[in-house]
């Protein structure tokens, strides 16, 4: 099997982010690492984050940093990855790509303990960079510039210390003195040798300063001092005249200011009042804001609260450290404060956000200070606060992220043309069900009913220099309606257009005159109101028109073409006639190129399945330049000039090329390149768009020419980041469309469909899917479809959280307390209401209050996907949490379809995995599947992590036991079991009499059930230990799985073994009974192996396009979706394997990781070809 791997949706989650001035100029950009991709984002003037560039690096990015050489105007990006190399990138504005300036190899590839890449620290003056591993190794590179002002990098200087774990590294700001790097380190060598445990108890973290002596070219340990043992993060304090220098050490519950020769200044981090005493408060991300006169830090804790930290200092002596509650936003992995007053918050899970500063926390709020630090016998006195609504920040934009995808299914529940992807995403209060539809989201601005069924619509400007359109012209079967665009859109009759006839085309001619083509002639409306009319000769009528600003070609019935040109005086003059062999199906002329008199090419489609290119040059006017035959008569033609870019905003400097697009009657879009000189056609491609013949229209997207194709659904062809993309729109079938521009909507589309006129804009360009979000309560685990009513049944569970009632009680208490304060402030009751409303939204923003880690909350939900309404929500009681579910039809059929849910009570992972009990609940669907009723619950000895229906019974994987249950009156009845699975069963699939069992640690086991002997036995298993995270049944002998290290693999039982087992009357049982080394007698073979580089959490076989082949779709923790498509022909396989080989040689990945090595990170890659690699050469 040969597979082609394609990323459908790039990862949404962020690993790390850094901001700076990468483009050069005044703007601020953010570089974001999303695991395997590196993105460059920029907030535009409207405050929307735009992606300028997104590059796949084929490696794991672990750290990012930005630096600037003194006196330079532009920042560089340093990337620490798993490549064993340090890579310095520079953004090239001209070519819209990251240019690799330096790539320094220092170690083996992979995320290893002692290979640097985990942490990066840069000297604030850009003179040196330190790259550090988790343990032992630290390398320092000196950065400088040569005579030509190019960046140079030295060979590495070592600052290793063995047996030492590093927690965090930063470059200390010490002005232009020798660069100093600070690190939190822990030496474990003593603890490893001391069996009494004393050394381990005394192990002490140190803050160590490493000085790079630029004169001696040598790194030395300058200073090392014990630091709080909870220390986890360092933050640079501005120095060199701007501040006191030194570092902030963020430790559990404390922030400590430290510097060489300076006493510690310590303050506690305020705690949420409802936080259990056992939990500490850890800072997980930090950002610094610097201005000339002041600086402050924003530190975010693991609960999402942001604190503003300020230092009172005089010279380099720090007198006081203050920590003030700032605001609460969802927990981030990285925050960037932009100079323009924005805060970019890259959320750990769920959507990222861009906030604007309203204030900088000057107002009164809970504050902890080093001056008021109280030490008591039990330790330091904590400071408490209550989170509140946003005061200092206001959210202005968000970027969607599916991270983490917990479960996914591709189904066509809504009976649309393409199936929808249902994903369970997010965690805790931010979790959601997202329904993804392939296509761009649109924003409908207006829909108005028209009298009758319109057949076509156009927009025209009055003058070529106008910014906005003046008229919308709608044609009916026997009339034309003219609407003028102003504050409102209303019908006018003084436009000069003939309204008693249908129109074939309406456009601007010359600089300021209008043209209406109707079946009996051409009406030319001059700017001063004069009207010139050209009538068709005899009884012929005009059937098709092609025009641009200066040229018009009409096709008369019978196949005669007449060509008009506009002369110097603004008159439309007939130039040439040409007789075509038959009727003309469609026509198009390309727009007049800049600085030319005319466009050279006319494309004519005929009903004899051909498209001809005719010349319009005076020398060889109406000569046929080339002919292309197509599979079906063309319906619509469009000559589209695709200029990937002009070297401006984004995109490389490619010369424009002209593409001939043709919509054929069989629904195929056909595209070829037109040679600019000879008019020859080459490089043809075709794509099936839908069941109706595509009609093509020119549109404008981001100021560039784009194409709208209207088939059974609309498509948009446009340029995004230098690539031409053809993407469907998530909108209904349209009849006719035109671009639309007014002062309310710069780049819109006006279209007719049915009896309505619709105006809409297209949003979020560049995305593959648009999503509908249904919020959920807890982290979703799995879902199934209730087959009859098409409802979704979702199980959600969260560890360490309070149940809904407890939360409600706590909230009331808190509100009462707040209410008392309000009464004191003489607030009215209305204010209380408002607060409640705010509070209703708050869980998403603040997260649930933390409970002890052995508390669980969980619920079972029935959701109607069409309306997004929850019809039933059962909260599980008594610390139970649901982990698996399936629908099951027991063979006695008394109840019809039942729902089985596997739960665990009091589950704990630490210090040892333990639980009070496991249960299997059996529910009955009532009220037409809208609600659930518990039939009974059966206690089992472990967590039932997998459930599956099998031959009218229920198969359950309970720990290492596979058991078959039948339905009883009061409980489930054990029928048969097999205890021989290695660890814990996490997935069960069945097909005919075979059972495919996935073990958490040991891959797949193929089993069989013998009804006559009532026995379950394993006849084949895998020889590779795979930590299974997802599995899917492909065919009788084949399973697809994914492991937690990010590999996708397929295993297959070889044909002869499979046949042998099927033919054997004992079904291979005798062999099994002999037993071989605790394994099964047969082994499955691995046929596909591919490292995705991301934990795959769900797999499914599906077809995303109607009529398209089936492929395997996967979803990952980082929120990406991908597809593996099987190749149909040997030639494709050859082509792609060679293409991949050449790409590896000619275009090595950006961050220095070898492509082949990355795809083979854990096991050698087997027969899969690379996706985005070939995308690079797609156009």
């Amino acid at each position, binding site marked *: 099997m040969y597979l082609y791997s394609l990323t459908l949706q790039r990862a949404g*989650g962020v*690993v790390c982010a850094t901001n700076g001035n990468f483009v050069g100029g005044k703007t601020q950009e953010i570089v974001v690492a999303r695991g395997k991709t590196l993105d460059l984002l920029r907030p535009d003037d409207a405050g929307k984050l735009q992606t300028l560039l997104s590059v796949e690096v084929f490696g*794991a990015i*672990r750290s990012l940093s930005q630096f600037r050489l003194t006196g330079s105007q532009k920042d560089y990006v340093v990337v620490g990855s798993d490549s064993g190399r340090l890579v310095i990138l520079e953004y090239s504005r001209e070519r819209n790509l990251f240019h690799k300036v330096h790539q320094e190899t220092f170690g*083996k590839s992979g*995320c*290893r*303990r*002692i290979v640097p*890449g*985990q942490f990066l620290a840069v000297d604030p003056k850009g003179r040196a960079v330190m790259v550090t*591993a*988790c*343990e*032992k190794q630290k390398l320092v590179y000196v950065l400088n510039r040569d005579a030509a002002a190019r960046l140079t990098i030295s060979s590495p200087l070592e600052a290793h210390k*063995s047996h030492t*774990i590093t*927690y965090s590294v930063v470059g200390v700001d010490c002005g232009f003195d020798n660069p100093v790097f600070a690190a939190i380190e822990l030496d*474990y060598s003593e*603890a*490893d*040798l001391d*069996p*009494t*445990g004393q050394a*381990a108890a005394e192990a002490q973290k140190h803050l160590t300063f490493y000085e790079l002596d630029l004169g001696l070219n040598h790194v030395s340990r300058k200073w090392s001092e014990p630091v709080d043992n909870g220390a*986890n993060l360092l933050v640079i304090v501005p120095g060199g005249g701007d501040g006191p220098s030194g570092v902030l050490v963020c430790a559990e519950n404390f922030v400590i200011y430290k510097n060489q020769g300076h006493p510690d200044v310590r303050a506690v981090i305020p705690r949420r009042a409802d936080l259990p005493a056992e939990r500490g408060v*850890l800072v*997980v*991300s930090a950002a610094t804001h610097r201005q000339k006169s002041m600086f402050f830090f924003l530190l975010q804790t*693991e*609960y999402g609260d942001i604190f503003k930290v300020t230092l009172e200092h005089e010279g380099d002596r720090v007198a006081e450290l203050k920590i003030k509650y700032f605001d609460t936003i969802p*927990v981030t*992995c990285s925050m960037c404060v932009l100079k323009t007053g924005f805060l970019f918050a890259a959320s*750990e*899970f769920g959507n990222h956000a861009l906030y604007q500063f309203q204030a900088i926390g000057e107002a009164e709020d809970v504050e902890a200070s080093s001056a008021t630090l109280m030490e008591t016998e039990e330790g330091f006195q904590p400071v408490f606060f209550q989170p509140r609504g946003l005061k200092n920040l206001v959210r202005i934009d968000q970027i969607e992220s599916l*991270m*983490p995808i*917990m479960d996914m299914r591709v189904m066509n529940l809504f009976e649309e043309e393409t199936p929808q992807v249902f994903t369970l995403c997010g*965690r*805790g209060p931010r979790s959601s069900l997202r329904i993804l539809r392939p296509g761009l989201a649109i924003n409908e601005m207006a829909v108005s009913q028209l009298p009758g069924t319109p057949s076509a619509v156009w927009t025209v400007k009055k003058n070529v220099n106008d910014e906005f359109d003046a008229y919308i012209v709608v044609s009916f079967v026997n009339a034309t309606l003219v609407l003028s665009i102003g504050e409102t859109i209303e019908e006018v009759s003084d436009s000069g257009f003939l309204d008693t006839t249908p129109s074939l085309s309406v456009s601007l001619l010359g600089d300021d005159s209008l043209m209406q083509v109707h079946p009996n002639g051409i009406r030319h409306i001059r700017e001063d109101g004069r009207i010139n009319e050209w009538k068709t000769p005899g009884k012929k009528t005009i059937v098709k028109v092609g025009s641009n600003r200066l040229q018009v070609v009409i096709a008369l019935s019978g196949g005669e073409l007449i060509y008009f040109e506009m002369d110097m005086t603004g008159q439309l003059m007939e130039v040439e006639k040409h007789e075509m062999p038959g009727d003309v199906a469609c026509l198009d002329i390309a727009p007049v190129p800049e600085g030319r008199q005319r466009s050279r090419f006319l494309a004519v489609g005929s009903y004899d399945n051909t498209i001809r290119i005719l010349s319009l040059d005076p020398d060889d006017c109406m000569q046929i330049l080339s002919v292309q035959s197509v599979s079906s008569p063309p319906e619509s033609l469009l000559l589209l000039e695709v200029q990937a870019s002009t070297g401006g905003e984004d995109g490389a400097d490619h010369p424009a090329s002209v593409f001939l697009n043709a919509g054929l009657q069989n629904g195929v879009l056909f595209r070829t390149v037109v040679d600019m000189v000879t008019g020859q056609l080459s490089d043809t491609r075709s794509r099936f768009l839908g069941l109706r013949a595509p009609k093509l229209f020119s549109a404008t997207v981001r100021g560039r020419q784009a194409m709208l194709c209207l088939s059974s659904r609309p498509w948009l062809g446009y340029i995004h980041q230098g690539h031409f993309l053809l993407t469907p729109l998530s909108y209904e079938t349209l009849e006719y469309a035109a671009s639309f521009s007014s002062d309310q909507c710069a780049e819109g589309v006006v279209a007719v469909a049915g009896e309505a006129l619709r105006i809409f804009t297209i949003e979020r360009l560049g995305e593959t899917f648009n999503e509908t979000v249904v919020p959920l309560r807890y*982290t979703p685990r799995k879902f199934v479809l209730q087959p009859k009513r098409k409802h979704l049944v979702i199980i959600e569970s*969260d*560890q*360490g959280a309070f149940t809904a009632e407890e939360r409600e009680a706590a909230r009331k208490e808190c509100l009462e307390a707040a209410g008392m304060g309000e009464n004191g402030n003489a607030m009215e009751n209305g204010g209380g209401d408002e607060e409640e409303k705010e509070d209703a939204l708050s869980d998403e923003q603040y997260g649930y209050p933390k409970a002890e*880690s052995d508390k669980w909350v969980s619920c079972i939900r029935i959701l109607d996907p069409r309306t997004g309404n929850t019809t039933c929500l059962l909260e599980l009681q008594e610390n139970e949490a649901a982990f698996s579910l399936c629908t099951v039809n027991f063979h006695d059929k008394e109840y019809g379809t039942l729902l089985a849910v596997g739960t665990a009570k009091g589950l704990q*992972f*630490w210090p*040892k*995995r333990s639980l009070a009990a496991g249960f299997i609940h059996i529910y009955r669907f009532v009220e037409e599947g809208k609600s659930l009723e518990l039939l009974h619950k059966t206690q089992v000895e472990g967590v039932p992590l997998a459930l599956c229906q099998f031959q009218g019974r229920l198969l359950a994987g309970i720990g290492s036991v596979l058991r078959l249950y039948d339905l009883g009156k009061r409980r489930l009845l054990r029928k048969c079991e097999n205890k021989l699975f290695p660890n814990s069963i996490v997935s069960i699939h069945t097909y005919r009499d075979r059972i495919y069992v996935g073990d958490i640690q040991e891959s797949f086991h193929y089993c069989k059930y013998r009804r006559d002997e009532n026995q379950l036995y394993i006849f084949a298993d895998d020889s590779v230990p795979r930590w299974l*995270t997802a599995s899917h049944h492909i065919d009788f002998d084949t399973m697809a799985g994914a492991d*937690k*290290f*990010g590999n996708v693999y397929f295993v297959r039982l070889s044909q002869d073994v499979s046949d042998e087992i099927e033919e054997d009357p004992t079904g291979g049982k005798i062999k099994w009974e002999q037993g071989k080394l605790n394994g099964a007698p047969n082994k499955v073979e691995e046929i596909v192996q591919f490292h995705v*580089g*991301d*934990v795959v959490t769900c797999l499914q076989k599906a077809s995303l396009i109607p009529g398209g082949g089936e492929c395997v779709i996967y979803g*990952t*923790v*980082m929120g990406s979706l991908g597809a593996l498509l099987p190749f149909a022909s040997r030639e494709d396989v050859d082509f792609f394997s060679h293409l991949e080989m050449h790409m590896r040689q000619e275009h090595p990945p950006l961050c220095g990781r070898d492509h082949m090595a990355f795809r083979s990170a854990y096991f050698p890659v087997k027969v899969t070809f690379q996706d985005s690699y070939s995308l690079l050469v797609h156009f």
Partner: protein
Amino acid sequence: MVAAAVLSVMGMGIFNHGHSSKSPSPAYANLPLRRPARTERKMDLKASDRFNINSQLEHLQAKYVGTGHADLSRFEWAVNIQRDSYASYIGHYPILAYFAVAENESIGRERYNFMQKMLLPCGLPPERDED
């Protein structure tokens, strides 16, 4: 070349024995000391290497943390593997996120916990014999 071979053995170790974070086992301390199998390493040696093999090994052991030696105890071996695993979890962000979802902690806290566990990943070392 030897270094590469040894390290690849070490690298494989991470994944074959990667204990889930949920079940760190402090039980190693009580297990009897035993030599691990070292066949793979031997196969890679050539006759010419044998000359100064000891000095080479010592160099490797100093350079590459976790390189085994003849008298490696089961405890030391396990500690190395655990540390390698934790370092790998910390380095692979998706795995870290996966654990964070399972334990309902923030990713930052999860990373910190793993780093803390690198101090004593297998509990206290066993009592030494008389040597």
